[in-house]
């Protein structure tokens, strides 16, 4: 099989496992300065799938693209220490405030600027926004077939991939033609650790920062300008039950519970 040009879309996100009391500002926005950051977990899984594909098709390359502030270069270096060939950060104030529409537009432009690409992998969703929209929107904008919720690559064919998708109840196997976009779920294999030698080569490396001007984008469709989503209010919701009720495992009791839930419009 001919070597593949593979792209991974990744995001640096706040580490929600280590959220302190100062994580939120008084106005309800996220206090990013107070939060440590991490490689979005499902994007790491996407990177692993991409690296495994690269290894199965000799001569292939993996390029990682992220959009964010200059410090997001950390995840590009991290990805390179794990085996990615190169990468860059889309970093420009004109990208700021983007919703999923503007983000996917910027990423699609960046991918187009690379010329022909065979496969694009990204995490299903990021742990800060949880939208799961960016990957599919990028595919649509590039007019590529997409498979979401990928768990593993079952087979690498000649210009096709057979992918196992994780569904709510079980899994299914689909074959897709390349080029294509794949979003990877948390059930996929964990990403390998960095390699110490690659770490020493890249831990201090300069990562290219690319501005909006370099990707042939329509500036009106970027950032806040290009984002129809308007946030009305962000609220901290604390779920707390007032009292608990034990329901016996009998048909009568369960029917009663179902009726109550229907009456209260829960079901």
């Amino acid at each position, binding site marked *: 099989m001919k070597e593949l040009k593979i792209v991974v879309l990744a995001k640096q996100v706040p580490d929600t496992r280590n959220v302190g009391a100062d994580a939120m500002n008084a106005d309800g926005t996220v206090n990013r300065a107070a939060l440590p950051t991490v490689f979005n977990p499902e994007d790491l899984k996407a990177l692993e799938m991409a690296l495994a594909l690269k290894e199965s098709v000799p001569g292939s390359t993996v390029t990682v693209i992220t959009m964010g502030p200059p410090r997001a270069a950390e995840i590009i270096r991290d990805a390179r220490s794990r085996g990615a060939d190169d990468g860059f950060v889309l970093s420009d104030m004109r990208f700021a405030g983007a919703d999923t529409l503007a983000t996917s537009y910027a990423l699609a432009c960046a991918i187009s600027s690379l010329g022909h690409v065979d496969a694009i992998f990204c995490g299903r969703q990021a742990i800060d926004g949880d939208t799961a929209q960016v990957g599919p929107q990028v595919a649509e904008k590039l007019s590529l077939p997409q498979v979401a919720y990928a768990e593993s690559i079952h087979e690498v064919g000649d210009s096709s991939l057979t992918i196992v998708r994780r569904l709510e109840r079980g899994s299914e196997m689909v074959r897709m033609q390349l080029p294509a976009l794949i979003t990877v779920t948390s059930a996929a294999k964990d990403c*390998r*650790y*960095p390699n*110490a*030698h690659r*770490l*020493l080569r890249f*831990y201090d490396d300069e990562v290219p920062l690319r501005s909006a001007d370099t990707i042939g984008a329509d500036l009106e469709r970027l950032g806040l300008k290009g984002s129809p989503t308007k946030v009305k209010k962000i609220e901290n919701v604390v779920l707390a039950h007032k009292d608990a009720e034990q329901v016996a495992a009998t048909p009568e009791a369960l029917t009663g519970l179902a009726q109550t839930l229907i009456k209260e419009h829960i079901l």
Partner: protein
Amino acid sequence: MNFYTDNDKLSFYLHHPEMAQVAAVKEHDFAEHGNHPEAPANSEAAVKQYDAVMTLLGDIAGDVIAPNAADVDAQGPSLENGRVTYAPGTRQNLDTLIQSGLYGMTLQRRYNGLNFPRVAAVMAAEIIARADVGFATLWGLQDCADTIQQFASEELKQKYLPRIYQGATCSMDLTEPDAGSDLQSVRLKATFDEAANCWRLNGVKRFITNGDADLHLVLARSEEGTNDGRGLSYFLFDRADGGMTVRRIENKMGIKGSPTAELQFTNAPCHLIGERRLGLIKYVMSLMNGARLGVGAQSIGLCEAACREAEAYAASREQFGKPIERFIPVQDMLTAMRARTDGARSLMYETARYVDLAETSKAASRTADILTPLVKLTASEFANRNAYDCIQVHGGSGFMKEYACERLYRDARILSIYEGTSQLQVVAAIKGIANGAYLKLIEQYDSRLREALATDNKQAHTILSMLGEAVDAYRQLYDAASSQGSTDDLFEHTARSLAESLARIIMGYLLLLDSLRDESFMASSRYWAEQSLSYIAGALTLTRSRLR
């Protein structure tokens, strides 16, 4: 969990001011920079590299090795048809570390090594041992590669050293049924096979850690008719060449994941390392010093693990309406555990720095030689004490298999035995005791502190004067043990007390020096100043009463 980044004290020693010099020596003044993509430009860059790799290792230790430890302990390795299979967790640990390119940490870059100094290597061992001491023994055996790098021919180095990076495991085959501490009695025979133009090994080795390794360093009798250490040479045996089977693996009390094997060599082909007759007196001695520092690192990893287990339990367990950490008798145990860990660690990194500087300085080399047995002696005994106290803090729960402290207790027990018992470490320290080398070193610490301590740092001055008193008491102890009227026996009876006194005093000084950069070390420094005084007073009373 990251076992490097969650422990500020490791970063503290990695960023010790002398590390600039350590890095410069290891990098030959950064001559390789520009010719190799991994070679750092200066000391600052080198230390950053060490830090980055320790962070990687800390992740693997916390997320892979530690979670595997209990299963590995329960399952252990197995033996079938003369071959050993590791427990699944052990295999996963090895594979993860190999894939991460961490093997060959101290090897030169031309053999795919990371070219890291001893300080970084012992830190890696400490981090891994905190996760699982049994696995740390396997990891530590890559130090065998240092012996090959240092003493073997270029041809052997080219052939074997790159395999370390690829994950070839090592063993150090010294012990035999009748040659344990007394290695001069080794009998395994090496004969030169003229027809095949190679050496061949015949005989039995016993208690060999990781005995079914890929590469073996074997001590064998090459000079027929000899019966002492001068008839022994050192050989490199590649398991793939055949001629060796594992007869049994031992059923041990602790470090159960690490296979300890009895090996039968039958006409096994092998390569001579360096020169004949220097096997024990030069090469093994060199390897042994490294291994002793390695056991020190394992011990400190275990000390740290025991501290954390005990601290966490004491904070969460409530009795009489409050957490037990608020009761003074429990606090005393936790303080002692922390002070032992701090003290042994400070002593170990000081020693490792001297080992690294030994390449360019005879004085550093001599200091490394006298400090190494003190590290092995104190750290391994402290690991046992910490494991004991860890169970004590847990009370009845600690006696149950459910808690990690039970495994720590069993794993700790070997530390004061293998690579030279505590008693043999005392023997190794006697020369420095008799010629005053330790006292000279202590004088240097003392004058450095007198220069550096601010006059208003009252607490530090109090500790310094206590340590001064302890040194005076030590001199009295030494005089009593070697005074006229005493016998050689009395000196030997007192030798352990002398060595232990010196270790306590030196730890007090080193921690006080550390407190100049981080005040939190002051408490442990004071602990050792107090302990020195009380320990030496007891030893002096005993020795004087023996003289009566």
